[in-house]
């Protein structure tokens, strides 16, 4: 029943690679390496902080942009090039097409996140090694206790295991945005419309938690405002829930429960938007 899915996913991934989407990695590399050179005058704590801030921020921006822009063009491009007619003329259910497309972009996002994380962690490790060597040289005559404390201060400011769940949540958020964009594209009239809608949802989604709090806590006294807050809370996904990296960078530990629940929420949204995309696309006249 799902035999066509891997083939569609593979073709989607190949097409995206051919569109030279990975060129954004060059910009990411420039940002990460350039940032390191620029902030060399700062203290090592500031340098590591800047590197993490800029790298994870850029990772979040790039994955979100790829997810929205690449996914928005799938349907309209296939319709324009008429490849969708050839494909759907075969015994391929429409939900297979949707699922294949989503898996294709999921693979592309996964490769992108892995490459960006690899580059970021490599630069972080290189910077850490340089600072450790410098600290050892400076404290050559100090007591072992002082040396240990100074080296611990350096290592505690660099890689923390917490960064990994943060990166995982960046990926989940991008996948959520891809499934949402895919859903929007099934009834949109053009890819521009899909992109605009997706960005609107992106921004409103970040305010959803505020609207939800207003609605559920009954802070808004006016009926109209409460209905509006309820509408925003129910229609839009809570994208603020996926913004963990800002605080992870600052050294806040991610409790396993929070990570699991955030992943569960992402899973529900992704499954729901993909199912809705398949549902709407199945009834669309081509």
């Amino acid at each position, binding site marked *: 029943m799902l035999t066509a899915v891997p083939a569609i996913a593979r073709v989607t991934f190949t097409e995206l690679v051919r569109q030279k989407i990975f060129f954004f990695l060059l910009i990411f590399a420039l940002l990460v390496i350039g940032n390191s050179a620029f902030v060399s005058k700062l203290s090592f704590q500031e340098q590591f902080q800047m590197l993490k801030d800029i790298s994870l921020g850029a990772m979040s921006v790039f994955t979100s942009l790829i997810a929205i822009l690449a996914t928005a063009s799938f349907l309209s491009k296939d319709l324009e090039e008429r490849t969708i007619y050839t494909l759907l003329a075969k015994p391929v259910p429409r939900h297979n097409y949707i699922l294949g497309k989503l898996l294709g972009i999921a693979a592309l996002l996964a490769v992108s996140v892995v490459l960006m994380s690899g580059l970021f962690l490599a630069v972080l490790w290189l910077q850490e090694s340089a600072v450790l060597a410098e600290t050892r040289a400076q404290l050559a005559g100090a007591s072992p206790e002082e040396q240990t404390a100074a080296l611990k201060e350096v290592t505690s400011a660099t890689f923390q295991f917490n960064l990994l769940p943060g990166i995982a949540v960046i990926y989940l958020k991008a996948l959520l945005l891809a499934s949402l964009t895919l859903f929007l594209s099934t009834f949109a009239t053009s890819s521009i419309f899909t992109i605009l809608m997706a960005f609107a949802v992106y921004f409103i989604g970040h305010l959803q938690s505020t609207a939800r709090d207003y609605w559920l806590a009954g802070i808004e006294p006016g009926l109209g405002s409460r209905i509006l807050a309820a509408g925003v809370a*129910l229609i839009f996904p809570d994208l603020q829930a996926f913004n963990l990296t800002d605080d992870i960078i600052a050294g806040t530990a991610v409790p396993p*429960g929070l990570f699991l629940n955030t992943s569960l929420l992402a899973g529900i949204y992704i499954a729901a938007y993909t199912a809705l995309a398949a549902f709407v696309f199945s009834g669309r006249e081509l």
Partner: protein
Amino acid sequence: MTWRLPAACALVLAIGAATLPLQGRISEEAAQAHFRQTPLTLGLREQIGQSGFLAALSGFRSPLAAILWIEAHTAWENTEWGRMAGLFNTVTTLQPRSLPYWDMSAWHMAWNASIAALNNTRQPSEALRIRAQRGYIALGRDFLERGIRNNPDRPQLYIQLGVLLRDKLEDHCGAAEAFLKAASFPDAPAYAARFAGYEMAKCPGREREAYDHLRALYEKGESQRLPSLVNLLREMEIKLAIPESQRLPLPLPGS
């Protein structure tokens, strides 16, 4: 398609309603774990402008804070202390859980800006220079105290507050409290407890407590028996008239 789209919209609402409890649980867990504590208020909107506020709302608080920090560093190079203080306020509001931002903001204000104010050749009045110096030290202290309120679970800013109270305000009793608080954390550096003892020894009325505290550290073993600690203990034994039998053993000749 005609009926499917309204049906899909209804399903979106149903999914939104079904996930509300999970969303609420995530918000609670995030608040308990000190996530998302930045108050995205109109005050912040005025500080960072509309596009900055939009970026902060969209989950780009940390890159925005990094950019503003670099701007503050440029202001430092140009010795624009007032502008620096404003930028530090914004950065620490954006990233209240980031210790380096609080620590460095306090250091710039209490050390660099305060010394620059004291040595300001454009201000002929010494009284006004001293007043400006005290103002910057108070600003540095305020950064640390606000940082502690946002990070009550970490020892680093308590240590910095202790250093500021000790070196800039000569408030030894206050410094002792700050170091003691820092030392109470399991991940505190070993020197926090020693510093608490040193400051307590200078706090009138707490000398005996300081002696007991430092003696307890001494008994912990070689790692705490630094010359400064041993010398202070010997001085206090004389000052407090500790009986000979309870005093530290005298060093062996030649050791």
